[in-house]
């Protein structure tokens, strides 16, 4: 096993080396000139320039209006398009191992940020599709699954640099078939788990919040007595109730997996009754049936544009869902839930034009600024504006054309993917792999020979 782990690390090393080769990680100034810039929030600029310095966008406008700082690296963007980095609000990429702490109905105490790896090559593949930011979540086996993590895909850099310092804390809830274990059995040794119905899912969430309120009251009482100069015994710390209490205090954003009308309304009603806020309904494939209720609660919707029929609760999914929610005033995003789909969220956004007739500008928001809003990071992500993070993507054509490709992806001004460099490094990487495997095989051969020698006659 150890040997395998070591080899795995070596292989991962190849791809990480690839990425390290790209990023300069210096505070260089880079300018993209003469490109079509899709700013998202301020329209389209033809023959435009963007200047990146110190990880931020410091200028954007027509070529004529933007001066090139001396010493800047200049990229010719003629014929190319520039967008902000794609934001994926539903990812499981880079989770090292299982995504489900399957043993409890509420495993809200656990944190996905504790089990991320920076060696998942799918991160690099997503950079090659223009995705720069993701909300990495637990699975949906539990009504309350655990705390999620917002990251930037800084492949090749230490994990500590992936976390966005001012990003909100988030937690994953799940409703419907998955938390009620409809489509799978627990692994051997783990008994069947409550709940088995949507009624039970509601009860798990309700009880968790009620327990949290009692817990908060105990701590309030403790604090009050302490303030009075008494010497009370503190209540017992409970990590699950800590996070439930922080949801009630508005310190942790709720992101909930859901499909059907009834469960969507259940959660919205529960949030009214118990006083917590739901930030984004994920999947929400029947969101179009109750779009006005979702909008009235100020809750966002993140969905697959056209997946359907993979289970009973996904049978009424329609690709018009995105346009219908967006038109009803729901801040809507297309997100991936998939290592594969996360590489082309721009094309999922384009489908909202085909299905339901969103305008190009509205559709562009689905994979950029709307995601930033739902992650409460729109002050620094999601559009091309002065002062925002220099997370940019250069495309060979309009990102809604199926014939376009990503040329270069920047995060905070550093290059994390560049197609020209990727192509140039392939032969070198293949040779490195061959050499290392050969060296390893040679060493193994030597060891085997050594073993065959008779020990002491």
């Amino acid at each position: 096993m150890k040997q395998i782990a070591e080899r795995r690390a070596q292989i991962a090393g190849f791809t990480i080396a690839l990425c390290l080769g790209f990023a300069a990680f210096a505070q260089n100034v880079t300018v993209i000139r003469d490109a079509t810039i899709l700013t998202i929030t301020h329209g389209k600029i033809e023959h435009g320039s963007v200047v990146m310095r110190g990880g931020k966008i410091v200028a954007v406008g027509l070529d004529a209006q933007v001066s090139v700082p001396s010493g800047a690296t200049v990229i010719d963007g003629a014929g190319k398009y520039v967008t902000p980095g794609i934001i994926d609000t539903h990812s499981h990429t880079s989770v090292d191992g299982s995504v489900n702490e399957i043993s409890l109905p509420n495993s809200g105490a656990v944190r996905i940020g504790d089990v991320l790896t920076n060696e998942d090559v799918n991160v690099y593949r997503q950079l090659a599709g223009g995705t720069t930011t993701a909300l990495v979540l637990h699975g949906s086996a539990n009504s309350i699954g655990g705390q999620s993590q917002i990251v930037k895909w800084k492949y090749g850099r230490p994990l500590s640099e992936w976390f966005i310092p001012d990003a909100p804390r988030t937690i994953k809830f799940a409703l419907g078939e998955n938390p009620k274990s409809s489509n799978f059995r627990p692994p051997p040794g783990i008994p069947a788990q409550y709940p088995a119905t949507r009624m039970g899912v509601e009860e798990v969430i309700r009880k968790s919040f009620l327990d949290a309120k009692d817990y908060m009251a105990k701590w309030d009482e403790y604090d009050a007595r302490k303030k009075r100069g008494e010497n009370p015994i503190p209540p017992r710390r409970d990590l699950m109730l800590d996070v439930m209490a922080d949801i009630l205090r508005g310190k942790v954003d709720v992101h909930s997996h859901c499909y059907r009308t009834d469960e969507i309304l259940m959660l919205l009603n529960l949030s009214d009754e118990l006083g917590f806020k739901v930030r984004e309904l994920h999947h929400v494939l029947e969101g179009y049936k109750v779009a006005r209720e979702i909008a009235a609660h100020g809750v966002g919707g993140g969905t697959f544009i056209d997946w359907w029929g993979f289970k009973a609760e996904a049978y009424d999914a329609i690709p018009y869902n995105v346009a219908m929610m967006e038109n009803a005033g729901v801040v809507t995003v297309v997100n991936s839930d998939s290592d594969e789909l996360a590489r082309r969220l721009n094309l999922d956004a384009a489908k909202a034009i085909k299905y339901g007739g969103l305008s190009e500008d509205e559709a562009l928001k689905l994979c950029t600024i709307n995601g930033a809003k739902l992650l409460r990071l729109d002050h620094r992500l999601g559009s091309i504006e002065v002062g925002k993070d220099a997370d940019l993507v250069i495309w060979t054509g309009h990102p809604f054309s199926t014939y376009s490709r990503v040329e270069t992806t920047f995060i905070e001004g550093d290059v994390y993917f560049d197609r020209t460099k990727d192509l140039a490094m392939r032969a070198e990487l293949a040779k490195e792999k061959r050499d290392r495997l050969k060296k390893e095989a040679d060493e193994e051969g030597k060891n085997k020979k050594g073993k065959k020698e008779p020990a002491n006659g």
Partner: protein
Amino acid sequence: MVKRTALLLGIAVSALQLSAQSVILNNNGKKPTVAIKNAMVVPVTAAVCNNCTIVFSGGKITAIGANAAVPDDAMVIDGTGLRVYPGMIDSGTRIGLTEVESVPGTNDISELGDLNPNAFAAIALNPHSNVIPVTRINGITAAVASPGGGIVSGQSALIQLSGWTPKEMLIQSPLALNINFPRLRTSSFDDQPQDEEAEKEARKSYTEQLDKLRDLFRDANAYAKAASARMKDVNVKRFDRDVMLESMVPVVQGRVPVIIHANLERDIRAAIKFADEEKIKMILADADDVARVIPDLKKRDIPVILGPILAIPPREDDPYDLIFTNAQKLNEAGIRFSIQSDDAHNARNLPYHAAMCAAFGLPKDVALKAITIYPAQIFGVADRMGSLEVGKRADLFISDGDPLEITTNVKRVFIDGEDIPMDSYQTLLYKKFLARP
């Protein structure tokens, strides 16, 4: 209590089946004379014809040309600003064989056991599946429906995406036998070797599977020989019929091709060797590593079904665009290929699988061929379909742009000359909830 649960379950299941039966308007069985005028007609096998008229009648294309005569009785469609393409053909799907993936009662893809050459997709097609209208209103008019389990999964059917009965949908059945070629997995991930014990186990199971496959072909050859001997001479000893071996006779006689599904280089090479030994007509499918075996395919003129293209590469250190670039490599090498979605519910996205190949080097016109004329050629039905040519089936659609672009809308679809309603379960839900008071 047990009885009651069973009863409740029965109700739940039948409710689901109800919802899984399409109530979408079907074709009306009429094959009118239609003329589309002033359109850009893209025949695929000939030059694009601008300001063109295309006429079809009785299910067949009767004229294409700038000056084609419009018959008096024709229904005339003004195609100004619009384009006409041959209907797209998906080279590999589960259409008609599944409704809800997670509900076993709605799935008829995988039969039990390893060897099921006598499982015919044509038998289990649900012509009223909601998947069918969802797919065809994006311009996909025909699809290969294939079974999927075990080593020998069964036989595919080429179907048109319209019809009141399975038989009405069939264009060709059996179309091909499907083999999931046994995979030798001596690595736990990527190229990394397993420990010796696990490797031994993997090799043993691989050999057993290969033996099973070889035995089946040996028995089928013997059965075919005996059957033809008895056909010629009634004095040859009578033998009991065997449905499984009987279904293999057209395969071993080379009349029905074999789609061999193999993905990695080692498995593809083993599959080619097997096809050589058995002298079968091989079509390679899936084939992420196809670029590594080009000379072997070229030498034998083995065609390839690529896809799904929108998939991640098999190994950690593969180029990120490995699967996107395979089509162009085959195209450059002159190897015949087509593209499949390998999907059911989202087979409608077939043109975007092809487009991804074009984004990575495949000429756009070739990408279109890979989902029209090329599959027709590979499956031996190019005399009937796959392009807009006089005498071919009137399988076509009208769009407002390039169908490989997502933002293009398909306006109208004709299958075998029948005017297809542009509705699906999904468009009806859309209309229903737009009208919510």
